[in-house]
């Protein structure tokens, strides 16, 4: 187990550093000058050059990179090249929002996928099973941003039940927070829910054919009790694998959904900072995203060993 964790940490560090170098290189060759953007159209070339020196843009790329990564390793994300404000607090705020959004959409996706998947599995041969199956197909096909726009049109613009966008901090106003969370979480979670429900369905179908299920039924358990007591735990393993992979997708989806709903999360911050060529900020955000995905995958791996004792002995 210690070895596994050590290896994980090694992968963490390597992936993080590789990602930061790739981001740095890509941004370095991108045209655009943070100093000119900060000073605007009224600045003279001399002003721009002075600003570039002030924010260290005139140093060689290697020096800039090493300076940045050195500070990040001690927890200092540096100063924005455009607004000259510390980047760390901005990233922390935005990350908090994105994490809440992603977790809420995972919960919604599971709330939908597990019952719906089981339902379509047991109703596999009936006409209603086919209908349920088509519903989840449509869910897979509709992109999150479109779902978001539709939800806003119906529930915010037409019915005025919920706000069209924005974000409220749960500490300020909890019911406002929930109201602002519902539509984006549904938009982000709907595709994942539909995808997951199809995995749940096939996992349940597989499990129902297993010998131990037949044994359980032979002992006198009904379908439902056999499924709940023995089947679901086995069906959960493949579903968890997919879920782990999907969380990375959700983070990318969050970038789009945050735009649609004007949510100041990590995705919005990233797009803003790229537009401004705010190199230190973009690097910081990408690094945080990479670490975030790695941590989540690690947690999913850990969860396997909890669900499935067989994996515990293997590791």
């Amino acid at each position, binding site marked *: 187990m210690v070895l596994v964790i050590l290896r994980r940490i090694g992968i963490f560090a390597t992936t993080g550093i590789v990602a930061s170098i790739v981001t740095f290189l890509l941004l370095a060759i991108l045209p655009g000058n943070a100093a000119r953007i900060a000073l605007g159209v*009224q600045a003279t070339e001399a002003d721009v050059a002075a600003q570039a020196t002030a924010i260290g843009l005139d140093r060689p790329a290697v020096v800039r990179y090493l300076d940045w990564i050195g500070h990040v390793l001690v927890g200092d994300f540096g100063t924005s090249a455009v*607004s000259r404000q510390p980047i760390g607090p*901005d990233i922390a705020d935005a990350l908090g929002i994105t994490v809440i959004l992603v977790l809420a959409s995972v919960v919604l996706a599971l709330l939908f996928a597990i019952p719906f998947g089981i339902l379509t599995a047991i109703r596999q041969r009936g006409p209603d099973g086919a209908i349920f199956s088509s519903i989840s197909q449509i869910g897979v096909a509709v992109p999150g941003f479109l779902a978001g726009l539709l939800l806003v049109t119906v529930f915010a613009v037409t019915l005025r039940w919920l706000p069209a966008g924005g974000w409220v901090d749960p500490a300020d106003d909890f019911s406002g927070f929930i109201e602002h969370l519902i539509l984006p979480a549904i938009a982000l979670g709907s595709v994942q829910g539909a995808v997951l429900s199809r995995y749940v369905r096939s996992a349940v179908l597989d499990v129902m054919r297993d010998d131990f299920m037949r044994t359980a039924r032979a002992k006198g358990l009904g379908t439902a009790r056999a499924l709940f007591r023995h089947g679901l735990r086995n069906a959960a393993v493949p579903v968890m694998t997919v879920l782990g992979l999907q969380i990375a997708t959700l983070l990318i989806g969050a970038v789009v959904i945050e735009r649609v709903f004007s949510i100041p999360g990590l995705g919005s911050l990233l797009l803003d900072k790229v*537009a401004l060529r705010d190199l230190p900020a973009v690097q910081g955000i990408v690094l945080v995203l990479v670490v975030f995905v790695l941590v989540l995958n690690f947690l999913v791996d850990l969860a396997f060993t909890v669900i499935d004792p067989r994996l515990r002995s293997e590791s």
Partner: protein
Amino acid sequence: MRAPTRRTILASITGTLIASLALVGCSAGTASTDGGPDTTLTVGLLATPGNLDYTTTAGAAIPQALLYNVYEGLVKLDNEGTVIPLLAESWTVSDDGLVYDFVLNEGVTFSDGSPFTADSVKFSLERVKDNWTANGPAYLDPIAGIEAVTDTQARITLSTPSNGWLFNMTGPVGTMFTEAGISDLATAPVGTGPYTVSSFKTGDSLVLAANADYWGAAPYLTDVTLRYFTDATAQTNALLSGDINLISGISQFQLVDQFKSDADYQVLEGASTGEVTLSMNNASDAFSDVRVRQAVMYAIDRQAVMDTVSSGYGLLIGSMVPPTDPWYDASLADLYPFDPARAIALLAEAGMSDLTVAFKIPNLPYAVAGAQVVKAQLADVGITAEVTPLEFPAVWLDEVFADHDYDLSLIMHSEPRDVSVFAAASYYAGYDSPAVMAKFAQADAADPAVYVELMKEATRTMAEEASANWLYLQPAISLADADLRGVPKNTPSLALDLSTIAR
């Protein structure tokens, strides 16, 4: 045995779904319970400030939020574009136009409690030259000296008479600061205005609260939230769903008619200072010949461009001057009527009948839409325009604005009174006319009586020499809840002046 069991499963599934729906239902709807009149307002805006310091950060977003609301100057610009007193109660100008004596309002304090005096004037204006890196510190170049005569009398001496100087004092460079309040301009502004900043989250919102100790008439609105959107559709949806009450300066003009027919909203149409301009690189091989530039003037049906890009809203101007400027000349809009045959003849005369130009546009919706119409109309007179959208601001600023590496571009110039800026030889338009620049300088130093006339002459020469094709003036259209009163119609300055808005 089978049937009841399956029902059990279904029941539990249905239960879960109902429970989660109920959760959704419970939290829906908001209630406002306090009995008094609603003195709050939420405004939806598109460009977010990165910080709150406009002395070192460019862009319209910071002055839009803070100028006249949190910060004030000696003078301000009213909604018709007239310079009116603000912190200065009155002023006199010496006969030679060099000495301005300002009488300051008494009893004015900054939001940190420190008093506003003539020393604040001296401190603030002297700071511009050395400490400002953005928003045009050069605007105050005419100032030779600032003297605090008494606490309420400030004397500003100019090195040369300047008619434009006092107007520039209505903008960001004229802002009055207190020495004690500049330590954290980026996050904690201290001004004399009717509002103070109560919270700011970049990319999300800026909350203003009425300044209880304001020296002037208290504003009607006590709490104003400026909410920032990155997406124009999200912004209009927020208005339709009641999340926000006002959009100042919409960009989705195709939606205006929908709002006009809805009794819950009012549509305010005014003039902006945004000239949507088809810029020609006067220094390029293609456009250094005035006949080629004039051909582009005759080749473009500006009304058609305006119809496509802004659903017909806007104003054909024919120069870089909006109607809120005193030297606006309405006749310039008709200087070059749409006449493709004339354009073809001019191109033939210039020996440029088969011309190919690099048309580098910012990747902004109006520019992308407008470029398609322009490209088609240029093709009709034999000019092939190769359209390249460049990321805005990053790449466009570098390639077109700084390096002048383009033939044609299409961009809105939103700064107020920027006609003389456009004529400068070093500007990206490459229009090098010493005569016009001399005329602008002469106008600025002239007797106020002939100032406007000289400005008109220089502006007309720029149009006659076809230094650019000013397509139209961007409409300033605001959408607001029907019960709002006093919403500013025009946008003659960068500021979004909240002081006149009431319900």
